[in-house]
C-alpha cells in the first residue's frame, strides 16, 4: 500500500537535480515570512526565534540543526500550529496556518505512547481521534507495524518494548493518517547511538517510500546530513539560519554515505559554523 502510493504520485520531485525545478513549480509545503517568537513579558523578554524567512519545497526532506536553545523546537511547534508566532506569517500549502492540521504529523523526542494502551491501540490513536474508517486504518496500522518489525508486538504494552521499538511505534502512529508533512522533533534524541543510527537509516528508507515532505529538527550534524535533502544550520538565540545548503548526496543513503567526500565537506562546514558561534 505504501509503495503503491509512491508510484501513484504524479511527478514526485525525487532526484536531486530536479529538486530546484520542483521548488519553483509547486507551492511550498511550508512558507515562513518574517516569523519571530518572543517568550515572556515585561523585563524578562526572550526572543527565541527569528526574524525568519523559510520555504520548504513539497516532497523534500529538510534538516534543521542548531545548538540547544536556538529555537529550533519552537520553529517546529510554530509550523505544527501548536504555538502562534509573535510576528510574521506562516503558510502551509499556500493556505495561512490556523492551528494544527490532520495533514501534519509530529514525532516527538519522547515516544509519547499511552502506557495503558497496546502498541496497536497507540498506533490507531490518530484514526480514533480523527474518526477515520476503522478497517482500512487497522490494515494500514498492521502494514506499518510490519515494515518496522513490530508486528509481533501489536498487542504488547509500551513498557515491554525497548527504546528503539517504542520510537518505531511512534513513527507508525505518525504515519497512520498518511500525513502530507512529517515534523520530526529530535526523534532519536532519547536513544542510544547504535539504535539511533539504525533507526535514522530506517526512517530514510521509509521516507523515500512515502515521498512526503519532512522537516527534521536535531542537534546531531551527521544525522541531519544523512537524512536531509537540504541542511539549515541555525545560530543560537535568537535562532536564525546561518547556512542553508542542498545536501547533494545520492539516495538511497546507507552506512557508507558518511564516508562520502561531500558528506565530510558539508559536515566540516556546518561544524565550523556551529563552533565559531560558540566562540563569539
Amino acid at each position, binding site marked *: 500500500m505504501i509503495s503503491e502510493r509512491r508510484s501513484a504520485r504524479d511527478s514526485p520531485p525525487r532526484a536531486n537535480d530536479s529538486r530546484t525545478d520542483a521548488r519553483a513549480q509547486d507551492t511550498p509545503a511550508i512558507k515562513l515570512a518574517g516569523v519571530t517568537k518572543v517568550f515572556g513579558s515585561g523585563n524578562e523578554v526572550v526572543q527565541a526565534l527569528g526574524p525568519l524567512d523559510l520555504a520548504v519545497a513539497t516532497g523534500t526532506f529538510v534538516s534543521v540543526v542548531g545548538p540547544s536553545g536556538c529555537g529550533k523546537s519552537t520553529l517546529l*511547534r510554530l509550523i*505544527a*500550529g*501548536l504555538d502562534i508566532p509573535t510576528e510574521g506569517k506562516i503558510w502551509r500549502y499556500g493556505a495561512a496556518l490556523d*492551528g*494544527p*492540521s*490532520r495533514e*501534519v*504529523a*509530529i514525532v*516527538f523526542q*519522547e515516544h*509519547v505512547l*499511552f*502506557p*495503558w494502551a497496546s502498541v496497536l491501540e497507540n498506533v490507531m*490513536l*490518530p484514526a*480514533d*481521534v*480523527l474518526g477515520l474508517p476503522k478497517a482500512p486504518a487497522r490494515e494500514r496500522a498492521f502494514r506499518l507495524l510490519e515494515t518496522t518489525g513490530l508486528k509481533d508486538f501489536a498487542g504488547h*504494552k509500551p*513498557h515491554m518494548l525497548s527504546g528503539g521499538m517504542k520510537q518505531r511505534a511512534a513513527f507508525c502512529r505518525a504515519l497512520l493518517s498518511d500525513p502530507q508533512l512529517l515534523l520530526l522533533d529530535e526523534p532519536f534524541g532519547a536513544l542510544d547511538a547504535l539504535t539511533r543510527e539504525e533507526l535514522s537509516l530506517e526512517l530514510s528508507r521509509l521516507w523515500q517510500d512515502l515521498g512526503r515532505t519532512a522537516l527534521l529538527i536535531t542537534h546531531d550534524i551527521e544525522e541531519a546530513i544523512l537524512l536531509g535533502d537540504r541542511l539549515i544550520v541555525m545560530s543560537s538565540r535568537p535562532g536564525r539560519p546561518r547556512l542553508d545548503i542542498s545536501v547533494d548526496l545520492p539516495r538511497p543513503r546507507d552506512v557508507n554515505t558518511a564516508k562520502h567526500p561531500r558528506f565530510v565537506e558539508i559536515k566540516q562546514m556546518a561544524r565550523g559554523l556551529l563552533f565559531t558561534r560558540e566562540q563569539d
Partner: protein
Amino acid sequence: MWKAIAGRSTTPLTYLALVIVWEAFVRAFNIPSWILPSPSAIAATAVTWAPELFFHSLATLRETLIGFVLALVFSLPLAVVIAFTTTLRRLLYPILLGLQSIPKVALAPLVILWLGVGELPKIVIVVLVCFFPILVNVVAGFEAVPKAMLDLMHSLRASEMSIFRRLRIPIATPHLFTGCKVAITFAVIGAVIGEFVAAQEGLGYLILISSAQSQTALAFAAILLLTVISVVLFYGIEFLEKRLVTWSP
C-alpha cells in the same frame, strides 16, 4: 528455598511472637482482665459474643460502605467541574478547603443533632470524611497529564471531550485509587465517630458500652474487628487497582 520460606514467614512469626509475649506478660504479672485481657481471654469472649459482634460489624460496615460510595458519587462530578471551570474552581475550592479544615469529630454532634440517631447521620459523617481525599486526588490526576501527550492530542485537533476521555481519565485513574485508599481508612474512623456520639448499633457503640461496663475483653474484640474491616477494605481497593491499572506511568 529455606531462605524464601524464612523471608515469607518473618512477618507472621513476628506477630505470633508479640501475641505470645502479651499472653505471657498478662499471666506472669497477674494483670486483671478489666485492665488488659490476655489474647486467649479476648478470643474466648469473641466466641461467646460472636452473634453480637457479627451484627455490630455489619452495621459499621454498612455505614462505611454506603458513605464511601456516596462520597465517590458526589466527588467525581465535582472534581470534573473544579478541574475544568476556573470560575467554579475559585468559588468552590476555598469552601471545600475550609470544610476540610474543620475536624470531623467536632461536626459529629451537630450532624447527630440535625439528623437523629439512626444510620443516616453516620453515613453523612463518613461522606464528609471521605469526600475530600478523593476529590483532591482526582483533580490532581486530571491535571497530571504530561505536556507532550497534550501536544500529541492537540496536533490531531482533538476536542477537549476527546482529550478528557482518551487521556485525562486514564491518567487520573491511579490518582483516584490513591484517594480511595486514603478515604476508606478514614471512612471506618468516620463511622465509629458517629457511633461514639449517639448510636444503638455498630462496633463503635459496642466499644463504648463494653468499656463502660468494664468488659474490656469485648472492647478489644470489637477493636480488633474494626482493624480487620479497615485492612480488608483497604486491600480490596488495592486488589481492584491492580486489576484495573495494569500499567505504570
